[in-house]
């Protein structure tokens, strides 16, 4: 097997399998990595470091954090743009390409733009592109989009299955490092059910890659002991490769793993999120080959990859010396250590480095980094003395190197804590951070709380575990924690000012957005001194890293420029998501409820075109869509001339029962119901407290204390809820039950409907004399118990037949059977809408809007004046005294007279809009276009109105009396 030049032997590379090579392609070259490698580690093993071009200046970029924290490693993986190459595992045959370059990744033609960076001052979007008008959309935006693109979105991306799952636990611990593991163990020993969430593939956190003692033994030993104890603990659930991407109220945490978002609800939450290593700021600090110290350590221990051959280390504490030992042990020639500090007490770590004859330059920094012209990789660094804060003195030496490791400071991974309401506090003397002000159910552990020494991290985990258990009323027992005595391991330090401006700039505070030191200084000089404004003006922290690497330096620069402390400046508001989150993850498998009537499949079998109304699926018409108009016409005529069958199961149904049933309806609806006779039905019109129409239906009085009422398909849930709300206050002796789903319903309608019904309903007399219009009867239809309602929505003799829904299909079959020899036709809701339009019946929600009053739709007849109270009554009293500006009128247009208007077309009075068309259609019965719409209140029949068509043309229509069809209402009374 061909070995990769930078691959280190086992046991290094705890995440990779040295025996399992995996081939993939990057930028059309074939590479071989190992199972468990990320794209970046596999490329680094093969000495390929250049991964991407930066967002603005197209600068070459490579591995920086090895933790997927910034935009440097974003690559395109097949259909998927913006994949973090240092997080995504390689699989056999993976196709990976760089993003955002013209030509090739190594030779990007667009990189010339960097030369012009001084013409792109901070805020240049706002300063430059707003003039002349239109220049942005037509000229600048297309150019900028081309150059500042990220990955490519492919519209033909195959659909993948994503979903969500709820998860519950007593105590969740976010972060499986030393503090998190310690917290989980201590909490689990109280008997609590603990969930330990770790974003890496294995538990251990910094113990997996860091070095805490001179001989490098402590971390692996401690880790093994912790992990073994945790694995054997029955109270601890472990989720690895799982990212907690935000905090929401009452400890509701989205945990993303693979294609699933877990919605975790935990009673107590321990944040052991660790710390984020921070860059140092100097000229060309973004070159490939410049790595955070922890990134180099991750490469070595997690992936078994040597991070370079000749290394320089920039540090301000023991972290850099530990780093030096790691490099030395793994075949990297450490040529120098630059230590920013003036002086310090020698530590064992330092002594050991010195004993290896590595030059250590005190009070020194990297002044600038130099790159190789062809490979774009780091080739040398120039060290200079630190003259004063942020200022370089004399040149010390220039070192050739291909690796620079930066270990100058850390910041707590504060995001989740701040989302939960915490506040970041900075100690000006030690430059260390802490977090205060968290809700009582959230506990911090380890480096997230500013702990900077391993023993203290573990101890703070233990404390957090105990505190969380105590909150649940549990006490910690047992001593399952490792009995390790911690040798005085070193203390991480945070240098207060690792920032060194350069005469030629290019000292990047924000790698995602290519923002330099002076950009932030200028933003402050431009008057944007508040951090949130600096952010919006400069775009700092707005890239994929969300300030993880720039927030600290920015706070320092802004603090310095505005003579404030870092605490006073603070960091910008932390919001979810923590890491880039796919829309697919948020969407999940998206539940779209679908309510079907009992006859649904019969409609499909009859060739119906279905439409969706709310959650309901309803037949629009029966036939092919190219024959739509003809189908609707035929269905319309079937009802007018013969007999049709309409599925009305979606109508809302409520049972109103009890001694106060009639009184209750009196209060809920505008009409009066006390005097309604048993066996009859009456129109229902519902207004809200403001007097606006919100629903309608019919009330069937089945008994003195029992009404069966209908409500509109879309309105019934709200009507039901509103009724219960009112009666929670009135406390009438009445029960309201929503029985919508209990009943399937059909409207058997047309002049021959009685004849058809007589075939299958023989237990009651159907003649108009004993079962007249507006009567309700109980009967048996085709062996099915039914409620029969004689209503006239479409204006013909007809029966609404309501039966138990599980028997709806049998009823449908029986009626079609019985009507077969009479030519019965199933009729869809398009025809039904047209039929009722011919009768001038309005549909609440279509012909009414959020302000329609009964007066405006000529329904004053439906308002009882004799009731002491009904909802909306008091408002209607007031409304009646004011003339409304509009009313709903009927109009007709001769069929051959030009274009047919559409619903929502405007009705004009001169140039003024007075209303719109609410319903319109061609009436085959009347052979003309009929419609309703809002016109001026004084519009009289016989006059005409002007309609503005979609085409912009004006159309005249004749205002007529409604109904258009059968004004004497003879046909429904047959």
């Amino acid at each position: 097997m061909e070995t990769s030049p930078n691959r280190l032997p086992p046991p290094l590379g705890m995440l990779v399998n040295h025996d399992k090579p995996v081939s993939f392609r990057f930028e059309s070259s074939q590479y071989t990595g190992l199972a468990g490698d990320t794209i970046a580690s596999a490329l680094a093993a093969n000495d390929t470091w250049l991964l991407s071009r930066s967002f603005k200046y197209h600068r070459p970029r490579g591995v920086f954090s090895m933790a997927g924290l910034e935009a440097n490693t974003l690559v395109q993986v097949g259909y998927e743009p913006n994949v973090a190459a240092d997080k995504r595992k390689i699989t056999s045959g993976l196709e990976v390409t760089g993003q955002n370059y013209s030509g090739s990744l190594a030779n990007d033609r667009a990189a010339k733009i960097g030369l012009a960076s001084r013409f792109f001052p901070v805020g240049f979007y706002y300063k430059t592109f707003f003039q002349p008008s239109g220049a942005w959309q037509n000229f600048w935006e297309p150019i900028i989009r081309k150059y500042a693109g990220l990955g490519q979105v492919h519209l033909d991306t195959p659909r993948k299955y994503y979903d969500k799952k709820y998860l519950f636990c007593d105590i969740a611990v976010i972060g499986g490092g030393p503090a998190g593991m310690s917290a989980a163990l201590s909490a689990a020993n109280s008997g609590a059910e603990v969930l330990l969430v770790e974003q890496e593939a294995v538990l251990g956190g910094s113990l997996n890659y860091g070095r805490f003692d001179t001989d490098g033994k402590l971390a692996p030993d401690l880790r093994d002991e912790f992990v073994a104890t945790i694995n054997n603990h029955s109270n601890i659930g472990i989720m690895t490769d799982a990212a907690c991407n935000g905090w929401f109220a009452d400890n509701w945490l989205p945990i993303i793993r693979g294609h699933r978002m877990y919605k975790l609800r935990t009673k107590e939450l321990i944040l052991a999120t660790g710390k984020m290593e921070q860059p140092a700021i100097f000229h060309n600090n973004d070159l490939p080959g410049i790595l955070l110290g922890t990134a180099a350590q991750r490469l070595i221990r997690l992936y078994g990859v040597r991070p370079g051959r000749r290394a320089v280390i920039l540090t301000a504490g023991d972290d850099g010396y530990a780093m030096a030992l790691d490099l030395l042990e793994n075949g990297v020639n450490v040529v120098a250590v630059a230590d920013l500090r003036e002086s310090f007490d020698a530590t064992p770590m330092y002594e050991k480095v010195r004993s290896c004859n590595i030059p250590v330059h005190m009070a020194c920094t990297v002044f600038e980094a130099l790159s190789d012209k062809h490979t774009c990789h780091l080739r040398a660094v120039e060290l200079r003395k630190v003259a004063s804060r942020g200022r370089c003195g004399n040149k010390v030496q220039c070192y050739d190197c291909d690796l620079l490791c930066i270990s100058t400071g850390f910041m707590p991974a504060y995001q989740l804590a701040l989302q939960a309401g915490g506040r970041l506090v900075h100690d000006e003397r030690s430059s260390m951070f802490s977090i205060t002000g968290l809700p009582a159910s959230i506990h911090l552990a380890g480096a997230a709380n500013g702990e900077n020494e391993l023993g203290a991290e573990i101890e703070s985990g233990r404390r957090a575990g105990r505190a969380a258990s105590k909150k649940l009323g549990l006490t910690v027992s047992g001593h399952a924690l490792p009995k390790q005595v911690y040798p005085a391991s070193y203390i991480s330090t945070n240098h207060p000012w690792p920032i060194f401006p350069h005469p030629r700039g290019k000292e990047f505070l924000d790698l995602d957005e290519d923002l330099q030191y002076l950009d932030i200084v200028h933003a402050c000089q431009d008057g944007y001194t508040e951090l949130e404004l600096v952010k919006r003006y400069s775009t700092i922290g707005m890239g994929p890293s969300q300030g993880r690497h720039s927030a600290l330096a920015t706070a320092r620069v802004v603090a310095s420029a505005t003579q404030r402390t870092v605490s006073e400046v603070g960091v910008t508001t932390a919001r979810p998501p923590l890491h880039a989150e796919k829309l697919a993850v948020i969407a999940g498998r998206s539940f779209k409820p679908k309510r079907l009537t009992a006859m649904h499949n019969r409609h499909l079998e009859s060739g119906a075109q279905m439409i969706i109304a709310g959650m309901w699926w309803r037949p629009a018409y029966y036939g092919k869509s190219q024959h739509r108009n003809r189908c609707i016409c035929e269905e319309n005529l079937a009802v007018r001339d013969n007999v049709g069958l309409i599925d009305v199961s979606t109508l809302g149904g409520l049972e109103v029962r009890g001694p106060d049933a009639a009184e209750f309806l009196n209060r809920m609806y505008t009409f009066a119901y006390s005097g309604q006779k048993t066996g009859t039905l009456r129109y229902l019109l519902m207004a809200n407290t403001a007097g606006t129409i919100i629903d309608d239906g019919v009330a069937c009085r089945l008994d003195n204390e029992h009404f069966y009422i209908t409500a509109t398909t879309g309105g019934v849930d709200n009507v039901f809820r509103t009724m219960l709300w009112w009666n929670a206050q009135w406390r009438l002796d009445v029960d309201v039950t929503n029985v919508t789903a209990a009943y399937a319903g059909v409207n058997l309608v047309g002049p021959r409907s009685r004849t058809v019904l007589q075939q299958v309903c023989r237990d009651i007399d159907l003649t108009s004399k004993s079962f007249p219009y507006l009567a309700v009867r109980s009967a048996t239809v085709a062996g099915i118990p039914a409620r029969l309602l004689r209503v006239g929505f479409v204006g013909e003799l007809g029966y609404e037949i309501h039966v138990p829904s599980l028997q709806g299909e049998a009823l449908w079959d029986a009626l079609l059977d019985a009507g077969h020899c009479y030519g019965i036709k199933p009729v869809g809701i398009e025809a039904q809408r047209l039929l009722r339009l011919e009768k001038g019946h309005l549909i609440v929600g279509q012909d009414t809007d959020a302000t329609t009053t009964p007066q405006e739709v000529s329904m004053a007849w439906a308002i009882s004046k004799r009731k002491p109270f009904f909802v909306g009554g008091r408002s209607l009293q007031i409304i009646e005294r004011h003339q409304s500006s509009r009313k709903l009128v009927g109009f007709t247009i001769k069929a051959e007279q030009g274009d047919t208007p559409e619903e929502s077309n405007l009705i004009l009075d001169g140039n003024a809009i007075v209303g719109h068309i609410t319903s319109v259609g061609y009436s085959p019965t009347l052979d003309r276009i009929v419609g309703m719409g809002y016109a001026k209140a004084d519009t009289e029949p016989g006059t005409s109105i002007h309609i503005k068509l979609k085409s912009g043309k004006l159309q005249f229509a004749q205002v007529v009396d409604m109904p258009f069809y059968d004004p004497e209402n003879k046909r429904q009374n047959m």
Partner: protein
Amino acid sequence: MKIMKCPLNGPRNISEFICFGEVSKMPCPKKVSDDEWADFIWMSNNSAGVVQEWWCHSATAYWFIAERNTVTDEILKTYPASDVFTERIDF
């Protein structure tokens, strides 16, 4: 997502509930002036601080009252509507 404790169903995700605004006393429609009535219909108090609100658990259509601090969004307590509306109302 917040948790709300329904007096009937116990603690649930707030997505199971519908908020119906502040509990306010309807003035007597027979006695009140037009202006006062319009004020009742259109003007809500929108108070900063602890308010009584109507909430409905939608799966059970169960109405109850919650006391919520509109500044901190903290739900202090919830109880059945019958704790407040104890008697039949007639007009």
